[in-house]
């Protein structure tokens, strides 16, 4: 598979990055991604349905995530839910974004912008 270099997709939008983080520790469906993001950010980031699925549509096209054919949770009563999983390329892109941000933080720190160091 010919994935583009991960850097070509950077920087990621807030929504996309949050979705990548939410999917990093396991497969999730849309509502689960939304709730996980809200919980992780203390309710500061509230992904709306439109933003969420618009991002998912784009991420699917870019190959960052994939849709699962079967529900990973056999106990789930709702079969209509669609589950998404981070692809290997998606993980590489997320890592690249983290490195990019790290680099930025380092530069900010060197410039004395970061408190407590």
């Amino acid at each position, binding site marked *: 598979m010919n994935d583009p270099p991960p850097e070509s997709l950077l920087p990621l939008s807030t929504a996309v990055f949050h979705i990548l983080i939410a999917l990093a520790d396991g497969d999730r469906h*849309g509502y689960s991604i939304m709730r996980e993001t809200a919980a992780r950010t203390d309710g500061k980031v509230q992904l*709306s*349905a439109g*933003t*969420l*699925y618009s991002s998912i*549509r784009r991420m699917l096209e870019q190959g960052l995530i994939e849709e699962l054919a079967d529900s990973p949770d056999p106990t789930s009563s709702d079969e*209509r839910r669609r589950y998404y999983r981070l692809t290997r390329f998606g993980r590489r892109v997320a890592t690249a974004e983290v490195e990019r941000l790290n680099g930025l933080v380092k530069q900010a720190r060197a410039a004395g912008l970061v408190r407590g160091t």
Partner: protein
Amino acid sequence: MRATAIYRALLHCYPAAFRHEYGGQMLLMFNEQLRDTARSGSRLALWARAIRDAVTVAPREHAHVIHQDLRYAIRTMAARLTFTVVAILSLALGIGANTAMFSLWNGILRAPLPLVDKPQELVMLSNPDDAGMWTGTWDGRTDGPRSWLTYEEFEQLRDHADSFSMLMASQSSLIDWQVRFGGGPWEEARGRLVSGEFFHVLGVAATLGRVFTPAEDRAGSPSVVISYSYWQRRFGGRTDVLGQTVTIRRLPLTIVGVTPRGFIGETVGQQPDLWIPARLQPSVIPGYVWLHDTPPSKAMWLHVFGRLKPGVTKAQAEAEANTIFRAGLKSFYGAVSSERGRDYLDQRLQLNSGARGASAKRNQFSKSLTALLAGVGVLLLIACANLANLLLARGTARRPELALRLFLGASRERVMRQLVTESVLLAVIGCVAGVAVAGVLHAALVRMLAESDPRFQIRFGLDATVLAFTLAAAFGAVLLFGVLPAWQVTGPDAGASLTEAGRSLVGSRRQMRWGRALVSLQLALCFPLVVGAGLMAQTVYNLQRVDLGFPAERLLLVRVELREAGYDNARRVGLLHELLAEIQRIPGVRSASFSQLGLFSGGESSTTVAVEGYAPKGDRDRSSGMDVVGPAYFSTLGIRVPLGRAIDENDRGDTPKVCVIDQAFARQFFDGRNPIGMRVTSVDHDLRTDYRVVGVARDARTRALQGEVRPRYFVAGQQAPAAEKSPTLLIRTAGDSASLLTTVRKTIERVDAALPIISARSIEEQMAPLTAQDRTTARLAVVFGCVALALAAIGLYGVLSYGISRRTGEIAIRIALGAQAWRVIAMILGESAGLIAAGLALGGGLAYAGTRLLGSRVYGIAPQDPPTFIVATGLLLLVAFSAAYLPASRASRLDPITSLRQQ
């Protein structure tokens, strides 16, 4: 569950594809959020987010789909370059020709006066569609609405009508004046007389200097305003033009202002060089009384424009104007017996809209223009048929691909959206290219019109109306012919195409049938255009070759003004004699004479005659044209006098009065009797003058190219009653006549430097306006006929190329099996023959019906002229088979191995 329904409705803001894919999930999520908020509250925030999504995310998704479709469309179009180029070319030609033609049509027939302030509020008290002048005496009368007004009538209205905030008058005809700057040579300039309020009523200010004021009407100050184009042309746009002196006749006028660029005044299609205060009429058009109604004559020569006071209705204004007008008529015709007076008083003014200005051309051109517009409309139809055909053919070719997409779950809506995007992209490109084509055509049209009629000028512009027309035409075409094929190829049985895998011919039969029908239709539509162009071309040819009864070449016409120069009837004979003698001495002049009426001057003198031995049956039976001519008139023009003799030098004032009649006169009044020696009496009120007929001349056309030659008799200059009109000198030259013009002018100046030359031109120049309109129409018809042929050829070529590319396999097998090249060509041409024949048959019928529209415009040829139809058929056959031959010959050169492998 109402919330769910509302959210579901909200989802319709998203593109269908997105909705189909994620709508369910979003709804699911929304319901869960609803449930959650039932516990924690804050439903409002939930709705706010949903609505914000609908207005921010949904458009982004749409843009994404459009972007995708466009990229796909561009890829598809680039991959099928022939198709794309042919489609865009068809559209560009069709739209371009229509835009150009519509702009012309709109400019002449519909557009308001350029640069005039609030043209919709302008009203006219004269007839907008008439130009010219009329001098009526006690004997003349006009019934019903007046075409033009006299200066006194205008003054009465201007001074007494309270319904109008302003009124102005302008000369209804444009005059060619001989003007000179400083001591320079005489040159021609066009102008018209206008009243002082002219520019104020039109709401136009000067670009340089000033325009006229009402003071011009009182003082009659010798000032002149010039047009922007004249300023540029004659003075190179120099600002020191103000204050310069222009001399007209003997009156020096001062240039006081320049009008804005593009301003033409109140008459559409005419661009005056000069505007002169009407008060100066006696000085610039000497010898005529136009400023006063002096019994028994009234000179009607003015258009009257005005603006209504606020709150005054048109009906009120018309009623008031008529009250004043009738009072004027009563006092003027008061001296006439009450019985006849009633006839004269049966006149009234009609209040017309002045928004579109006056136009002499409007009525005259409107039929041909509308016919031409219909012609280019047909052109657009042909272009549309091309497009439809190509889209159908392409749709057919793409059927398997589309079927696959539909099969894989793409909605019909999604696939159609894709196809329509491609069509719209074509429309946009076609539109841009069409406007470019229109620009080029505009320029060509302007040149064409200016060439065939130098008096006629009109500016072209892509104004809002024209642009709206273009866009409507383009998008109408594409929607009609892009959406229909899209609908058809995505139809319910589209899935079946998948099984055919696009190889077999069966699936595309129906589309091919459609395509062939469209090509036939195109050829059919071409036919009337080609026939029309042929008929008009022959009409012009015939008009230029009308047998005038004398050769219309190497002939100069010079009109001089004798009365103004102070020549009374007795002295004019001597002067004319001297002028002719001097002119005849010029090397290169073969002979010279004069005529009071001139040739094709637009004038005719109708006189009442009593003819010996003829009993008139009515008034019309007693009228005949009359011309006063010099010796050698007939020999100079070259009109034969088969019976008797011509008028010569021996017909003097002291010899018996004689006349020569033309054959039309002889037919009308003598009807087989020998006219020689018979008496013809001219009756002018109480004045009766007897002439003896000494000769019968061949009928000559000196007035109009068409219609019957009317009876006319000719009398010698020395034996004629007092002449009012300025005579025209007729000068026959040995070689090119135009080169002698300067010498002739100098000779006249030598004889009498004060003698005004009103006009000097060759017979060709004099006659040009007579055929101008037909020539323009013919040229346009020929141009559009050619474009139609080109479009049809492009269409045929495109469809056959496509058809053949679909049959590559079959043709390759034939060649592999030993079919020779000519057999392949013959097979394809043979298949085209059917549709070409069908198109021609239908087209012949259309053309036959269409020629009725031309009926009256055609001259010297039957509208259903068989040779024209045969030539048109031949031409269409030639073009059609040439267009078919190219793809056929390409098919015959197929390499069977490669082609079959590709399949």
